[in-house]
């Protein structure tokens, strides 16, 4: 049973209040360090920062819409082997969900983490962030993104189609939706580990235990409805854009095999990608053979093959974070296609990436009596 408390916001500055809260978490004995989005040194981009010194907490910027990398991979690097104590990690909901997928792949161990999830306001593309940062490094021209406005053109498409803006499977939740954040911020201890940690915080920090505000439920329901509407329109548009093989080829026709989508994908889990191995280091003779057999062959070769293989690998674990689209140098709307395919694939296996850490990956298990409809030639 979740335990709800509230933080009083000082000086109408929720960010500073969250920083103080994170600082008090970092000060507890069990927490070795804090992974949090932040600005280190002269950096203008907000990147994940591993903070050890509580006095550097002002570097943390967990509400920023700058989202250049999905931290799940980094959280995996920090947690896949035992450490003394735990690392507290401030993650977006999609990062938590991806981390859960990685833990199922034994590439992360959640026992070494305390996950702090914040209601997600959504993110801008890295390109747009660079544009606005050029004029204003410290504050956003239009303030924080308004999650209630799904038509905010600057919000990444992945975020506008996201139904998982409230963190699931966090140990501690920082709630913003349906709350007047210039006055209060909601803190929930979700798991035993999270509640135990909150107990160790200074008493004056948190108000007495109370209920979730009524306005929150409505805010979440309303936002969910608008996100689903955007998502379904996006799915339909994408379906139509690739409803034949010719159109599919056109969809990817400016892919240069840079593999950025693979690098950015938090759940592209292979230690060594087959497309980097000798298997795809073809001899010149091989290319000539293809050209001879078919008359001509488009280069670079294997672009569609690469994307379909990647889909076969990651679609069951795709959390829809949109980093693939964020990093595509030629602006191919890859997120739209991957999310659509992931939705179909996950539905087929009655699975949802990041939903439950106890739920096994569909391809790691089987039942004797299932999917009998795929067998046979009838």
């Amino acid at each position, binding site marked *: 049973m979740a335990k709800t408390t509230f933080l009083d916001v000082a000086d109408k500055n929720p960010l500073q209040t969250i920083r103080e809260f994170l600082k008090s978490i970092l000060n507890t004995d069990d927490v070795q360090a804090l992974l949090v989005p932040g600005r280190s040194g002269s950096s203008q981009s907000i990147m994940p920062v591993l903070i050890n010194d509580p006095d550097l907490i002002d570097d943390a910027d967990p509400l920023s819409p700058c989202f250049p990398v999905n931290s799940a991979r980094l959280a995996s690097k920090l947690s896949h082997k035992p450490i003394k104590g735990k690392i507290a990690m401030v993650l977006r909901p999609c990062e938590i969900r991806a981390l859960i997928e990685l833990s199922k792949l034994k590439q992360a161990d959640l026992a070494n983490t305390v996950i702090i999830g914040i209601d997600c306001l959504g993110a801008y593309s890295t390109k747009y962030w660079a544009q606005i940062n050029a004029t204003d490094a410290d504050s956003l021209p239009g303030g924080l993104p308004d999650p209630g406005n799904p038509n905010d053109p600057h919000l990444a498409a992945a975020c506008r189609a996201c139904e998982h803006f409230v963190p699931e499977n966090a140990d501690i939740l920082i709630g913003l939706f349906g709350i007047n954040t210039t006055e209060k911020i909601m803190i929930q201890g979700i798991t035993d580990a999270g509640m135990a940690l909150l107990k160790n915080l200074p008493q004056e920090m948190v108000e007495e235990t109370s209920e979730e505000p009524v306005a929150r439920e409505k805010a979440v329901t309303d936002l969910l409805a608008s996100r689903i509407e955007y998502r379904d329109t996006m799915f339909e548009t994408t379906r139509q854009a690739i409803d034949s093989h010719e159109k*599919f080829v056109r969809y990817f026709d400016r892919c240069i095999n840079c593999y950025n989508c693979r690098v950015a994908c938090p759940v592209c889990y292979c230690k060594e990608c087959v497309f980097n191995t000798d298997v795809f280091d073809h001899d010149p003779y091989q290319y000539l053979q293809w050209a001879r057999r078919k008359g001509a062959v488009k280069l670079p070769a294997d672009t569609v093959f690469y994307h379909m*293989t990647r889909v076969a690998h990651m679609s069951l674990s795709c959390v829809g974070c949109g980093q693939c689209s964020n990093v595509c140098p030629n602006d191919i709307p890859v997120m739209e296609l991957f999310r659509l395919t992931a939705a*179909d694939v996950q539905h*087929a*296996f009655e699975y949802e990436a990041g939903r439950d850490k106890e739920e096994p990956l569909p391809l790691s298990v089987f039942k004797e009596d299932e999917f009998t409809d795929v067998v046979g*030639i009838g």
Partner: protein
Amino acid sequence: MTEKHHPLILAFVCNWCTYTAADLAGTSRLAYPENIRLIRVMCTGMVDPQYIIKAFLEGADMVLVSGCHPGDCHYINGNYKARRRIRLLKEILPRIGIEKERLRLTWIGASDGIQFSKTMQELVVQARKYGPNPVSAGARISE
């Protein structure tokens, strides 16, 4: 038109059951169409989805994966794993415009020589019905 289409069907067959059935069909002098290309694998559980995607991108009109009946797998459960992968591919292949019916999974036991021959003949009938793989049909220049 369909008479002129000579479909190419790639069949990944497991060493212990379907390949043995093909062998039995041969020694029993049962005919099956020349459109089938058999690839012997040790188990259907080792058929990487990549092999199937590549087969279609190279123009195969149909792909068959065939192994032991449930409970008979030489490696205990490889065929169950294959069945999940086939289920996955049946969602993914339509994304690139390949109808999911072009991918088939069957269980043909080592003693089913007659069944093997019949299945192959039926697959060719189906492949003619579906027509050429859209990958090779539509493309002037190969992907």
